């Protein structure tokens, strides 16, 4: 791959091109999010505000499910925090590359940080060329992603009103199906598989806990088991699995 000509415009366009497949992958999620919000009886304004101000696909999906189930606000907010914790990892990884930027840059780049933008942007930063405009590449991954997410939400809000009772069609299966499509490629080493197994088993054991607290308990069990598994495996295996550290894969928008 040839390095883009170092100009802000070329970097921005290169970022857009790099993130384009991931944007396309996020389209069904945006539409399904809007449609499920309508089905779940959430006001279109609330759904649109979530996409505009929260802008975090998986958290929005989980929130819609919890609102529909009558879960209290504070549990939803706590779950949002947990679902979005992974952004700390992304931000920590990107931070050394952007610390020269002003707040005028960091505020929007931070707000628009998603799985998709992170994945392609960190690859750009890791390329050796000395372009001084790599943050324009980052910006180029974020703005189209954001605009597309808003657009897809509106399409979904419309589709949810047009298609009667999407749940009867099994359209809610798109949730776990899409999440499986994101999860499976992340299972790249034994400690992550152990972590996922533990999370899955505890999710069944605790699924009757009120307010979907089972999700939080199961996720924490999974993280704990993953860390223990990593600790127990030999240092050689640990070193190898570190190399294969999970690329947070295309989560559609669900991953922001």
């Amino acid at each position, binding site marked *: 791959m040839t390095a883009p000509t170092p100009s802000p415009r070329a970097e921005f366009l290169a970022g857009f091109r790099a993130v384009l497949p991931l944007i396309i992958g996020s389209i069904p999620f945006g539409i399904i999010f809007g449609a499920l919000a309508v089905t779940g009886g959430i006001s279109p304004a609330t759904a649109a505000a979530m996409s505009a101000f929260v802008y*975090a696909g998986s958290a929005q999906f989980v929130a819609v499910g919890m609102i529909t189930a009558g879960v209290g*606000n504070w549990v939803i907010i706590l779950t949002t925090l*947990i679902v979005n914790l992974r952004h700390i990892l992304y931000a920590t990884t990107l931070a050394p590359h952007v610390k020269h930027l002003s707040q005028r840059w960091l505020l929007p780049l931070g707000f628009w*940080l998603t799985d998709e933008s992170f994945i392609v942007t960190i690859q750009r930063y890791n390329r050796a060329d000395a372009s001084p405009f790599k943050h324009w590449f980052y910006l180029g991954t974020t703005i189209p992603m954001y605009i597309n997410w808003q657009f897809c939400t509106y399409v979904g809000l419309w589709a949810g009103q047009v298609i009667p009772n999407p749940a009867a069609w*099994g359209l809610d299966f798109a949730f776990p*199906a899409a999440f499986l499509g994101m999860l499976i490629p992340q299972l790249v080493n034994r400690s992550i598989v152990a972590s996922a197994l533990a*999370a899955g088993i505890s999710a069944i054991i605790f699924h009757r806990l009120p307010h979907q607290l089972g999700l939080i308990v199961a996720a924490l069990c999974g*993280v704990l088991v993953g*860390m223990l598994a990593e600790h127990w495996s030999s240092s050689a295996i640990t070193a190898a699995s570190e190399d294969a550290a999970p690329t947070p894969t295309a989560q559609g928008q669900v991953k922001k």
Partner: protein
Amino acid sequence: MILSEMLLVAGMALVTFAMRYPVLALVSKLTLPPTLMKALKFIPPAVLTAIIVPALFAPTGSVDFSLTNDYLIAGIITAFVAWRTKNLLLTLAIGMAALWGWRLLLASASFIQS
């Protein structure tokens, strides 16, 4: 939009932004404990699994391991497609097709029985 929903969106927006921006802007001034960094990478697969499993094994609220649990059957097929293709759109499409196909199969089986 009612007040409670406005507060919810505001709260969600706040905690999400708090996961994204401050670390990006301040991390050069602080170091996160290595244990936390190790734990963070397990969060996406653990959370995803914790969401998926009840949706497949207990779609109606109680655990159902039977063949009539169409979500579970379609989920197994979906997982296989995800593993073989690593293609999100294809996984979604075949997964939905598997669900409808299995429902069709169950419907015709019960039709023949009756």
